């Protein structure tokens, strides 16, 4: 893993549960530059203050602005729609919602999760999104 700060990828973690937030931060902070937000609102604040992550890892059930609302906006916004989003939630039972939003979500990780599995999947998304953005778009 690159330890060099400039080469390290940036991740925004959006999670309202304090302990869960610490856990995610501790899993990812060794390999990435991590910023945390405790709901969709603080995630928006962090983004608008100039933090531009390479990936957003978000929970769904949150107060104020929830995960679906955040994803729906980010994927319409010209400034943020290129950022890959990974959803981490136990709320996948709302299957209709998933169908609507699937095209925007790069990966879904279901809680409870295995920490090492989460790390692998996040790094997988980062690798594939880097590859995708390097491919020239036809026409």
């Amino acid at each position, binding site marked *: 893993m690159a330890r060099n700060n400039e080469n390290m990828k940036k991740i925004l973690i959006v999670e309202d549960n304090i302990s*869960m937030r610490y*856990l995610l931060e501790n899993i990812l902070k060794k390999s990435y530059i991590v910023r945390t937000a405790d709901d969709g*609102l603080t995630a*928006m604040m962090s983004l*608008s203050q100039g933090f531009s992550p390479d990936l957003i890892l978000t929970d769904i059930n949150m107060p104020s602005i929830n995960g679906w609302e955040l994803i729906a906006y980010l994927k319409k916004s*010209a*400034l943020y729609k290129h950022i890959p989003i990974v959803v981490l939630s*136990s709320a996948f039972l709302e299957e209709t919602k998933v169908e609507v939003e699937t095209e925007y979500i790069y990966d879904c990780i279901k809680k409870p999760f295995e920490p090492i599995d989460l790390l692998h999947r996040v790094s997988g998304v980062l690798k594939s999104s880097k590859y995708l953005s390097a491919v020239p778009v036809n026409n």
Partner: protein
Amino acid sequence: MMSLLKDFPSLPDNHLKNKMIVVTEISAADSGKLVLLFGAFDKEEARLLFTNDYQVYQLPFASTTVTREEIQALPLKEVGLILIKQDTKGLYLKQLAALRNLKLHVSIPIILYVNSDIKQNADQFKKFKVVDDVITSLDDFAELEFKVKFLQRYKQLASTKVTIPKHVTQVSKKTSYIIRRSFDIVVSSLLLLILSPVLLLIAIAVKLESKGPIFYISKRAGKHYRIFKFYKFRTMVVNADKKLKDLSHLNQYGSGTENSNAPSFLKIKDDPRITRVGSFLRNTSLDELPQLINVLLGHMSLVGNRPLPLYEAATLTSDHWANRFDAPAGMTGLWQIMKRGESDMSTEERIELDITYAKNNSLIFDLWIMVKTPFAMMQKSDV
């Protein structure tokens, strides 16, 4: 000051060129909210806004730059959106930065309207921290309205969030933390001091009976899943973990199949790996005393939830169960004083108790648990 232009589509061509700012109003859901247009919107674009149920107001600005006074003179309380047409010099953006500083109006979304392909310029636009979003066309009104609604709500929430006096809750949290931490430090160091002869005797006994270290150190997850080195007196022979496999046929819970990945709940009657000193230490719970070091170092608290082995903590990474990790790990806790007597408590029940503790976490509650602990331990030694 403001004049309603009732017959906008038939405006003379030079009208929009001369007047820099056009104020429009959304007549739909957010009636009374105005839209401010900054920049040289041409007649077609203005007509587009008009045909989408916008009513047009005009403000009397003659100059090509907007002064701070002119901005302050705007009916900002009524404004629901500020739309800026691309300006290469960033003139309006500077004015809008000034507008930001007037705290009353931070909840107005500011959207930049550009003709160019914004993919390449996204980073450049982000530098103008004033701008909330960028659009390239006025054709998709549904999308524009969706964005405006979301941004209005977001900025409203954000502006109220800032005004909440955060320090009030922080102070009380901090003082309660300081009180507990000091309590932990004082009590654990006193106990370590008083018990030092006992600890020394145990250490010698452990060392003499079998080869190996005095302490058994394992990794455990405490508050907020933080991993720390957990100290116990060694009660088993060295490499006990490796010998586990050889003993699997004795496991009372085991299914017998070697490849099974079943949860590793292991209990062996008269476990041959446990030393005689170890057996005594376990029965008297004296093997737990080195955790006072963990308490002194701040890994644990005197009262809290049981620090969990990492494999067990990993299974508890769901929203509900995560709540148990909001409380510190502790030497004694609600579980220890409740479980005595009823030997069979399921894992779920135990974790629910942990969550109950985390939610009712207070100094008084801790003291109550500490008082109860010796009685619970006496009950245990009877069994």
